[in-house]
């Protein structure tokens, strides 16, 4: 039987604000336990929540970026359940009317552009953290768990998709695109180790062609793209095997264990809480008028999708190239800076440089694009000197490596022309000099010459390679080709 996989994701993105969503306590990560929990976060008697305006603006910003509707009056509701790291005994969230409704996100799966439809995005507060370590002793001497409320009240945006993804690869592509977008917009710092961006995956399978969805399982708290992919792949296999063995999938919440590479049942639907949602009477509806939306829109950066479309149509770049160039705002900025110097005709070469050498050098060195020591003005001559025939592509790559070494060694950065002169890297375009080299090479490689004459095109390339080698890479490849053809004909 052929199976179809159905996946929907719920992503919690921590909204980047200085203070918590309903209190003035700091949201900074890594402080000593409970040092960033004020009376409101502790839910002391008499405290009340007051909504953080910045959190709402981030939500609006996200909604606009995905082409969603912004609710003119969204409602905060209380989700009631008891847990020691939930101080009020309820979480303030949004239920019936979320701040963001609908929208879609463009993703690239392989070479194919797809759109993932969003159901909604709503604001809510995070809970605190239970710390299960040895050494915590309760009031009666019993072993206990610790509670750290620093996280309690951290603003989150929960972004929910429709069940439209059909493979783990699609889900990962979506999660990556979403991650790029929220970081791009500045609404989330995207730090997955610190829990700023985490996904829950709803996974089900059904026989290909069947209309009804299968029973789904929700895998909670996946905090890396790799875990997301592995967890979904495991879960899909598990469900298919279960059904094929005559069993049925039970709706439940599962956890992924990365050490064992498997998902495990956490609680079944029967054990699920009745959260008794109702509108929070301590908070007013979040009224968002057109003026507020316009103000947020005016501060928004150009979106990655807009840049991709623009660069594809204006510069003829591929979907793949533009995807790489818009992986984050800093990369896009370097590309734009570079393009401003070298001009539109060199767009493809600029894209190759940024997405190629430049990105991989930064990646190897573990340096963020924003902190890149080589700027557009350092890089631009590499492209212009190739374009005007001074150096070959190959030499340009070598020069980039030299520049990078200088940077790593903490030396003053040379100009590209200085390196060309100092190392004598200028391309040989003088046909007399080139012919001399070619003649030498032909004389030394009679076998290849014969092979070529016998019809082996490959032998031609081998000869070009030898000529380039003999010229230490400086021979103008176009001219070499031309001259060689002439000589062999």
């Amino acid at each position, binding site marked *: 039987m052929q199976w179809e996989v159905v996946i929907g994701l719920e992503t919690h993105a921590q909204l980047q604000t200085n203070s918590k969503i309903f209190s003035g306590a700091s949201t900074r990560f890594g402080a000593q336990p409970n040092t960033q929990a004020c009376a409101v976060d502790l839910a002391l008697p008499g*405290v009340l929540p007051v909504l953080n305006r910045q959190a709402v603006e981030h939500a609006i910003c996200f909604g606009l970026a995905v082409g969603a509707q912004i609710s003119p009056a969204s409602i905060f509701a209380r989700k009631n359940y008891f847990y020691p790291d939930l101080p009020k*005994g309820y979480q303030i969230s949004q239920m019936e009317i979320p701040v963001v409704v609908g929208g879609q996100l463009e993703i690239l799966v392989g070479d194919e552009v797809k759109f993932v439809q969003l159901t909604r995005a709503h604001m809510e507060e995070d809970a605190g953290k239970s710390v299960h370590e040895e050494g915590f002793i309760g009031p*009666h001497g019993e072993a206990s768990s610790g509670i750290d409320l620093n996280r309690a009240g951290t603003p989150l945006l929960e972004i929910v998709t429709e069940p439209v993804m059909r493979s783990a690869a699609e889900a990962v592509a979506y999660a990556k695109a979403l991650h790029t977008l929220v970081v791009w917009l500045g609404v989330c710092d995207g730090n997955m180790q610190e829990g700023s961006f985490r996904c829950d995956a709803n996974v089900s399978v059904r026989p290909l062609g069947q209309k009804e969805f299968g029973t789904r399982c929700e895998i909670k708290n996946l905090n890396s793209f790799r875990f997301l992919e592995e967890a979904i792949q495991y879960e899909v296999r598990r469900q298919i095997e279960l059904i094929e063995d005559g069993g049925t999938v039970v709706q439940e919440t599962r956890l992924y264990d990365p050490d064992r590479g498997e998902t495990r049942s956490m609680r079944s639907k029967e054990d699920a809480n009745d959260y008794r949602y109702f509108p929070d009477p301590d908070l007013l509806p979040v009224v968002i008028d057109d003026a507020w939306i316009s103000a947020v829109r005016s501060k928004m950066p150009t979106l990655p999708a807009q840049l991709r479309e623009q660069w594809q149509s204006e510069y003829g770049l591929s979907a793949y190239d533009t995807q790489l160039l818009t992986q984050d705002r800093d990369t896009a900025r370097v590309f734009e800076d570079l393009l401003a110097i070298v001009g539109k005709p060199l767009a493809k070469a600029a894209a190759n440089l940024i997405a190629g050498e430049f990105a991989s050098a930064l990646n190897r060195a573990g340096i963020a694009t924003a902190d890149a020591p080589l700027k557009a003005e350092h890089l631009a001559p590499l492209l212009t000197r190739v374009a005007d025939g001074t150096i070959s592509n190959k030499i340009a790559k070598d020069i980039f490596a030299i520049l990078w070494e200088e940077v790593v060694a903490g030396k003053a950065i040379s100009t590209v022309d200085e390196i060309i002169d100092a190392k004598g890297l200028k391309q040989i375009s003088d046909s007399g000099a080139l012919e001399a080299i070619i003649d030498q090479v032909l004389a030394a490689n009679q076998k290849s010459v014969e092979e070529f004459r016998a019809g082996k095109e490959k032998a031609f390339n081998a000869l070009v390679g030898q000529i380039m080698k003999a010229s230490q890479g400086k021979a103008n490849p176009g001219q070499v080709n031309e001259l060689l053809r002439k000589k062999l004909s």
Partner: protein
Amino acid sequence: MSWHNTPIALMAKALAAKQVSSTELTQYFLDRIEAGKHWNAYLDVSAHLSLEQANKADQLISSGKARKLTGIPVAHKDVFVTRGWKSTAASKILAEYQSPFDATVVANLGIPSKENPSGAGMVCLGKTNMDEFAMGSSNENSAFGPVLNPWNAAHVAGGSSGGSAAAVAAGLAPIATGTDTGGSIRQPAAFCGLTGIKPTYGRVSRHGMIAYASSLDQAGPMGKTAEDCALLLSAMSSHDPRDSTSLADSGEDYGRYLNQAWQEGNSTANKPLAGLRVGLPKEFFAEGLSADVAKSVNEAAKTLENLGAKLVEVTLPKTKLSIPVYYVLAPAEASSNLSRFDGVRYGHRASEYKDLGDMYQKSRTEGFGAEVRRRILIGTYVLCHGYYDAYYLQAQKIRRIIAADFQAAFKDCDVILGPVAPDVAWRLGEKSKDPVQMYLEDIYTLSTNLAGLPAMSTPCGFNGNNLPIGMQLIGNYFSEARLLQVAHQYQQATDWHLRQASEVA
């Protein structure tokens, strides 16, 4: 000088004229509190804290920095959190709880300080008894024993602000704060012969008020006269950025109309209320109202008529439904508001338990009284999946209709007059066996909380057993100053509010 019979309006004058010091006044009331312990009006008194504040108030007065109410003692309902005094909401679950901050009401009225530069400079006498978490109509639901009615110790003081009412009625405080979720200021004021006002929802900050039902809770003053209430309310209310439901500050002097005629330019001395239309809702005078109360309220209506007002009949057709609506919505909110009392971070925790669930269960069962447990159960039930639409949502819809009914009535009248409660204070224990019987006592007060309207209680007579009767004045949104004006004019023409219980005088 018998300061306990003196309205704070006069006390302020005596302080300003240096006829008495704040320290003397404070000591006077502390002595009376000590001697009047049997009323069980206070839950926590700390003489040295009060005298410390009085000393600061005296310094403010002598250095010319005093405000209108500086130096006057005030008692706070224990639902307001305070630094220094325990804040228990009359519950065992918070029996030893000390708040690290003051409620906005407490700060607004208190001694000015760096964090609270605009404090009125009043002196806190202590925390008054109440029904646990403000749930009750008789003050019999306090974990620390019932409050006795100063007019007759065998009767209840009313609730939930029974301690504040008894404290003022027994002369243990010149004025007190209360809160009113379904009548908890107006009904004990009526039962103890006082004046009390529940302002428009949002007038007074709920920050630092231990929440019962957030969409209904509203604080207000309880005193001897409408003028005193106007003074205290003016100092209590403010916009508070820490309460999202707090109204923008109008900086109102709620006493600005007290001595004015209802209509501008009316100079007929004996008809100050000419032009005022007083609406009498027929549903408020129907079956269930005791003859004594009906008689007194009707006489009060006549008095207002004599003062120039015109009486009109109005209708509030959903009055009866306010009871089920209230007893769905208030418990629903309460069930959630009281979830934070879980024994984890503060408050009572059971001494022995097997696991987390057992700890929750035992701590909460031991910590909450029967009525609080009942309302948590009701509230939990009506919010449950499958019942929400039938109960909670339906109740919210009727709530809107009730509010709309008031707006319709206010087309024909300026204020609504009716009884506060069907009868006078009942005997201790008389209704505690039957919670529904107790809930029915709230029939005339609940609807204003549901609508968010201001309403007040002022004395208008006594029954055959010399127990006080109160009348209720309900106004449209933001009309507190007008309500107080009508009550003040009524009090100029009557002396019910000046009567003292024989044991107290």
